[in-house]
């Protein structure tokens, strides 16, 4: 039961680079010790916040992609909550969405390979009609 999650969090804008790295590495160790693994870490840099959060107008965004179960996420969120410089975070499960996208992509690729000969006289309408259900699926 391995799930993929995206953990995005914002730290206060005056946090120095080393401290960010330290925070990220502690999170990484927490992930590995709970039996998950970190797929990627991305520092998205300083951004303007859309609204004020804890009297800050800017924040440093960090994106973490992890694999693991729900217990791991629970632990990570608890850690983020108690970590003082973290001002906001969100966890999004992405594996199901990714599966859906892969499926659509596979269908499109298959359609792209086969079409050379098909008897599609009313091509645009047939294409549009066929494409919409695929998008909804």
């Amino acid at each position, binding site marked *: 039961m391995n799930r993929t999650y995206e953990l995005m969090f914002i730290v206060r804008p005056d946090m120095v680079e080393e401290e960010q790295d330290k925070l990220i590495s502690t999170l990484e160790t927490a992930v590995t010790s709970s039996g998950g693994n970190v797929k990627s870490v991305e520092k998205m840099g300083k951004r303007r916040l*859309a*609204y004020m959060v804890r009297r800050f107008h800017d924040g440093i965004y960090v994106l973490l992609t992890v694999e693991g179960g729900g217990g791991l996420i629970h632990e990570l969120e608890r850690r983020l909550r108690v970590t003082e410089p973290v001002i*906001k975070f969100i966890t999004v499960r992405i594996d199901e969405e990714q599966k859906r*996208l892969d499926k659509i992509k596979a269908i499109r690729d298959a359609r792209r390979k086969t079409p050379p000969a098909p008897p599609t006289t009313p091509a645009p309408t047939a294409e549009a009609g066929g494409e*919409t259900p695929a998008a909804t699926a």
Partner: protein
Amino acid sequence: MAEEIRAMAAAAHGSPVGERPAGGDRPSGGDRPSGGGDRSDRGERRPPRPGGPGGREGGRKYFRRKKVCKFCVEKIEAINYKDVRLLAQFVAESGKIVPRRLTGVCTPHQRRLSAAIKQARNIALLPFAGRAS
């Protein structure tokens, strides 16, 4: 008096107006086929023209384009909360999610879109109210 004239005009256009839906005019947003006659003064509605059912685009001067779902047309499948540029197109100045009837987004995509916008709001990528400061 004006009412009478309008009524007459409507009667005069009665038959072509009645035929229009069959001519494939319905999907272009004209959900009131009989309203075409007396709304001609607005301009953006269709002018009082007995255009045949065949004249789809050529005949009318003020043709209201059919709204299409951006995601279906451009085949954008991934509606992600991180993609602020994309989401911002569907958020009004006030921060509200723009309704489907204005943007033309199809129902399944609007569902995903609104979910993504709400996630983006939660992580301060989009505002809850007002424009991004």
